[in-house]
């Protein structure tokens, strides 16, 4: 569903409070580029959201206790040029640093863990690896010659 233009009504004292029941906003949790304190979580948020929106969003929808929110807008560079020498703009985005309340901490998890490369027994990969190893072994020179080439000798 495309992002439709939303006009919020102007609030005057005594009016009913604005309530958004199903916001069209989506937050993205990102790994911080710089090391952050343990209670800080970093999000990319839509440009239209404010600090108070982020706080309410996390508290009401995800029931995360939020202490403080700080936001900034990251300018996307307009410097690169394409093959037609036109400037290519990378989109701007808003970043929110959320500090959790009640002494909670958060560390960004390791999404791409290192996998051990031992293939299981009797599989194609193991046979292929063994074959490659034998080939490499055949290419190597006799270790007893101590690195001397085979061009000469008896």
């Amino acid at each position: 569903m495309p992002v439709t233009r939303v006009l919020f009504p102007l609030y005057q004292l005594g009016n009913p409070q604005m309530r958004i029941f199903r916001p069209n906003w989506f937050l993205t949790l990102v790994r911080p580029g710089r090391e952050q304190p343990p209670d800080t979580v970093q999000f990319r948020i839509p440009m239209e959201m404010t600090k108070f929106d982020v706080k309410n969003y996390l508290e009401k929808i995800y029931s995360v206790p939020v202490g403080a929110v700080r936001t900034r807008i990251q300018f996307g560079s307009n410097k690169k040029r394409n093959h037609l020498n036109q400037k290519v703009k990378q989109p701007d985005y808003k970043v929110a640093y959320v500090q959790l309340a009640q002494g909670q901490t958060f560390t960004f998890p390791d999404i791409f863990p290192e996998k051990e490369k031992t293939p299981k027994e009797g599989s194609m990969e193991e046979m292929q690896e063994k074959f490659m190893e034998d080939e490499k072994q055949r290419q190597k020179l006799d270790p007893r010659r101590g690195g001397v080439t085979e061009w000469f000798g008896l």
Partner: protein
Amino acid sequence: MTCHPKGSRIRQERNMAARTRLPLLFPKNLPPLRNKKLVHTEAVVKEPAYPPIVHSLTAKSKAARKRQVEEQVKKICASTAEEKLTLLTRIQRKKFVVYPQTFARNADRWYQHFTKTAYIPGLPEKFNLGQEEIGGEESSQPAAAQTAALGIGDDVFANIRSLVTREILQEFWHTNKRKPFHYRHQELMVGPFLRNLATRLTYGLAKYNPLLPFSSLDIGPSVHFYWRRGERIIPRGHRRGRLEPTRFQIDDNPLCQIRITEQLPQFVPMEASYTAEVPEITLAPNMMPMFRKQYDNNIFTGSKLPDPACYGHTQFHLVPDRYHRDWMARRNQSDQVEVFLRANALASLFAWTGAQAMYQGFWNNEDVTRPFVSQAVISDGKFFSFFCYQLNTLALSVQVDANNPRKNLLWGTESLKLYDSIQDGEVVGLNDGVLKLLVQFLLNQP
């Protein structure tokens, strides 16, 4: 059987020959010692013919830079206190501005790291008498014994009590004050109460504390301090890759403060701080968040250097509207109330004691020889918190702090209610323990 190549065997024989040069029979009379330098002789003092060889001052080398720094340090050590202050605060660079009253979360841990202070809950033993009273409202000891321990009579304490009640009623009951301006409730309603309380208590207890008649009570003073701690590598710019010390500046405005002519005695000896724990934070202060600015580096206790009342006694701070516990509760930050008070006391008292020490000529490379002590009372009208600070070390920069076991100490209480409420021109539930602590604080003398 292994066969060694020929060369190594010869080498082995030569080495063996070198080791065993003595004759087969050990001689009884050894030949006379040729080397008489080891024997005690009169040292012959020879004037050096040439001046000492030192690194150059103006070359583009690390040794030259080191020598420049040493020369600067010697120059500062050899100057008077006023000149030291000017030399240390001469050059302006970007520095972190430390606000004692800050909205940042967990600010007290960060400030402890910046000032190398350890926090000890509760007050030092000197004030522990008062502490027991607050815990239990009805104490088994007779009232006379408690006030005798304070050093004043029972009737004097009753006078103080009535003074405080009158003060509370005057400000909050009798005076017809207009509706306060927006966001200025604390400043206009509670500020005058605290100021009058401090002033009248000081005057009332001046008879019992010989320091107070010669003290100076400042109203709305400013306290400034500038120091360096920690290093970082400059990431961008023409100075990229070089080490730069992180500079901090505190500009504080307590509600009122008392400055005295003699120094307060230490709470604990300096060696006791060696075992205290200071939280270590490896992140840059930017993450706190804290911001950098460049302006005049000031070091100021509240009055200029030649003032005889150069030592600090007590500071009174007012909690502004934004950090009042009701406002914090609205933002669901009730746990940060105590943190805010601790951070405030830490920063203010560190700045004050540090400035006092610098007025006496101590600085980063010439560490304090005696601890500097000050006290603070932070209140929002109803809740009072008491803090004591002992400055044991000013050596906070990286080179000097490497082998410095001393730490600064901050003692502090939780916030205690002075009175419960005011009803029909009567103060209900006046807490004697808090009053006793106030009196003890003001009566603190060497």
